[in-house]
């Protein structure tokens, strides 16, 4: 009889050992916004060189000495507004993106990711005005394949 108990107790102990939950690499993730730069004269994509790109609320810089036709930037998951400061040869323009942060549950190990919907109020505040205008091309951010916002300059 005692042997039977031992086996049961042992199996209880073994089964109660928990496997560590690790979010698998390559699981869905929170995506960034894609912003492309367009020449205001020719209306065609044109590379730009910026001294830096940062958020207003955050002192650290996201991109230093950025150059390229499009840039990917993180949006705030715990706010409905993200503000960026684009520094083009010491000319600073602010881009305020209004968005809905929609959180999607994956599983215990990965938790939530955030998708975004860009609202119409999204605007630029011209300080020195190197940005001519912006257009919202694709308002939903569920992947990083398409450009969401065009900046004309």
């Amino acid at each position, binding site marked *: 009889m005692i042997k039977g108990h031992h086996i*049961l107790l042992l199996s209880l102990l073994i089964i*109660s050992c*928990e496997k560590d939950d690790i979010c698998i690499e390559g699981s869905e*993730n929170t995506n960034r916004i894609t912003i492309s730069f367009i020449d205001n004269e020719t209306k065609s994509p044109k590379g730009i060189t910026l001294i830096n790109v940062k958020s207003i609320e955050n002192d650290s810089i996201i991109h230093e000495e950025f150059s390229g036709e499009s840039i990917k930037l993180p949006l705030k998951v715990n706010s409905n507004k993200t503000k960026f400061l684009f520094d083009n040869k010491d000319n600073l323009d602010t881009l305020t993106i209004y968005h809905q942060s929609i959180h999607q549950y994956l599983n215990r190990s990965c*938790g939530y*990711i955030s998708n975004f919907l860009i609202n119409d109020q999204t605007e630029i505040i011209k300080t020195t005005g190197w940005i001519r205008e912006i257009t919202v091309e694709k308002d939903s951010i569920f992947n990083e394949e398409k450009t969401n916002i065009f900046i004309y300059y």
Partner: protein
Amino acid sequence: MKKKQIYLFIISIWLSTNMLVSQTELNISDSLVIKDKLLTMNKLSLGVDLFKPIKSSSDGDNLNYEIVGDLQLTENLYLAGEYGIVDRIIEDENINFNSSGSFLRIGFNYNMFENWVGMDNSIYLGLRYATSNFSNKIINYTVRNQDSYFSNLVENDFQTIEYSGLSGNWIEIVAGLKVETFKNVYLGFSLRLNKLLSDSEPDNFDTLFIPGFNKVTDENTFGSGFNYTLTYSIPLRKKKK
């Protein structure tokens, strides 16, 4: 799913009644023993889990408790159950949430320990059907993000996520022991292996913890638990000697 639970419950009752019947059959020749073995409701035990209130107060949670009870049916077979209230903060991998609710487990214990005269200890195996109703409130969570430029912690003030009316059902295999420390006062310990039968699937969240069942894992439906009890046994009739 509901049907399955009902079947299991019936099977568990059927199994235990079988034990009862087979016992009486075995002892049919000994008329003196029959009287003693069949429906000798000698005692009713009531008690509390000592561990849960201590743990909840040290963790800063609201009071958690579990009351236990059993009723002797035959010499070795007991009708047994537990009822508990849980209000706990669960700190999970990415999500911290509050789980509050109650649970009820009903089933049988079968004593396998042969006592010497005058002793009343037991080593038992048991089976339970258990159910829990609870609600979850998410306190905060960290959003999985490839970019950590901004904080990815989401607090309650941005978005409140609450789920009520959640439920879970499971069965438990129990292995435990009970030792009489003073006259009619027992200390007990039991280990439980739980097998989840069904649970609620809240929208855009998951059942990660069920009161009475404990942690629910992604990969399988097994859980475990234990209790450490102090019980008092009420003699229902005087033993004839």
